[in-house]
């Protein structure tokens, strides 16, 4: 328990101490809100699809969560290469606890980042559909965060260095984000191949659940979103813990 707590705390301290990282990682979501939200808003409205900002914000929140979460997970590579991981691995504690502490810490940080983006969105004119659904929205944010921290940890556990990181960003994270329905509605008229790909993308369910609870727009339905997202998160936590326990340095 102490192990989990201290590793969680470490992630939080590291996050709050790197102000440049917090601010830097707000640039991209802000651009999405302004350029896409305001730029495409009128077209979206004319097509009769409603307010684009209301549609887009949950997607942008999800985006900032997955980037922060994945990055926290990938920090394992730094710890591996620059030694700190050794300090935890020779300590008389179980690797599972180390992994759980780190992952919870990374996920907490990612949710905080998501909340900052939500606040920014409120300033640009976004309005949640219901305050009662906010707690549920937090649950979805946390699930997305856990999923992607675990994914990052799993990837970092098998990678030797940061060389492969760019590959993962371009061929895994970007597709997961852009094909998830975060920036366009999964509706009639969208090519069916794209729709099938989107329904295989776990982030689609995260974005959809978040959109349902924040903006009242849903494609799969809240129950399906929750079920699929929790199952995949659980699966990735198991995989992440397993590969983390196999790290050799």
């Amino acid at each position, binding site marked *: 328990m*102490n*192990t989990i*707590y*201290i590793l969680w705390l*470490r992630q939080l*301290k*590291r996050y709050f*101490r*790197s102000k*440049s*990282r917090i601010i830097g990682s707000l640039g991209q979501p802000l651009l999405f809100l302004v350029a896409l939200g305001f730029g495409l808003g009128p077209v979206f409205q004319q097509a009769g699809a409603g307010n684009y900002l209301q549609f887009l914000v949950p997607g942008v929140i999800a985006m900032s969560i997955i980037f922060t979460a994945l990055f926290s997970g990938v920090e394992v*590579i*730094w710890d591996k*290469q*620059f*030694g*700190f*991981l*050794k*300090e*935890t*691995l*020779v*300590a*008389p*504690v179980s690797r599972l606890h180390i992994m759980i502490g780190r992952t919870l810490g990374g996920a907490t940080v990612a949710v905080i980042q998501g909340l900052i983006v939500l606040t920014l969105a409120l300033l640009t004119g976004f309005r949640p559909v219901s305050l009662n659904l906010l707690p549920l929205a937090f649950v979805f944010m946390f699930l997305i965060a856990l999923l992607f921290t675990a994914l990052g940890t799993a990837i970092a556990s098998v990678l*030797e*260095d*940061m*060389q492969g990181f760019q590959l993962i960003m371009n061929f895994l994270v970007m597709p997961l984000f852009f094909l998830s329905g975060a920036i366009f509605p999964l509706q009639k008229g969208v090519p069916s191949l794209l729709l099938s790909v989107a329904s295989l993308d776990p982030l689609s369910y995260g974005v959809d659940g978040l959109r349902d609870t924040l903006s009242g727009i849903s494609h799969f339905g809240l129950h399906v979103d929750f079920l699929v997202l929790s199952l995949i998160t659980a699966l990735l936590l198991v995989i992440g813990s397993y590969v983390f326990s196999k790290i*050799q*340095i």
Partner: protein
Amino acid sequence: MKKNEYIILVEHLTKKFGNLTAVDDISFNVKKAEIFAFLGPNGAGKSTTIKMLTTLLTPNSGTILIDGHNPVTEQDAVRHSFGIVFQDASLDDELTALENLQFHGILYNIPADVRRTRIEELLKFVELWDRRNNLVKTFSGGMKRRLEIARGLLHHPKIFFLDEPTLGLDPQTRNHIWSYIQNLNSRENITVFFTTHYMEEADKVAGQVAVIDHGKIVARGTPGALKKKTKSASLEDAFLSLTGHEIREEEATGRDHMRMGHGMWGGRR
């Protein structure tokens, strides 16, 4: 020969990585309260051996007993019994000196009040008490190494492993660090197991020396005995006559790539 007089017992230890036999059927013992130097050229098998002794790697064959416990089957008992200073810094740069020690204390389950007194005592011992609330990233190499020594001692280990503890430090700091370690050894009877490339350090502080090359132990004894055996004036000459003059190549590891590309990622660590 009584077995319990040895705190580290190694018999027929072998570790292979694919086709490469990094450690090849080595046996040696270290007595309680001894200062033991484990010497060898790059790639000779020193780090691999230390990793096996400290539960980070599992041997292919052979047995190890650390303070009577097997690192493969009794990991936690072994982990409680030793402290370690790794070859590369293993501190969290984004935390303060104090936080790094607190982190260690919590991982090793040291009660809060004991933790507080020991941390103060150790930080004073390595002369970093005044800097306790500074982030480690503001520390020099020597200060980091001293902090790591303090951290490695926090849970009162019986054995202290030091993997090239003085690498890259100036002579003043190196002398300082060895006087801490010798002081500790005589005061607390702690067993010290270290590696170094500075032969004069091993000559000065080590009671016993083992030389490993190509995964095999090629000589062991007191520094004086090794010099006598090889008819050398210094331990460095003895070392060279035992291991040859040929330069050893080590393959670049991921860590070397990281160091080269470090700046690219904003130098976060």
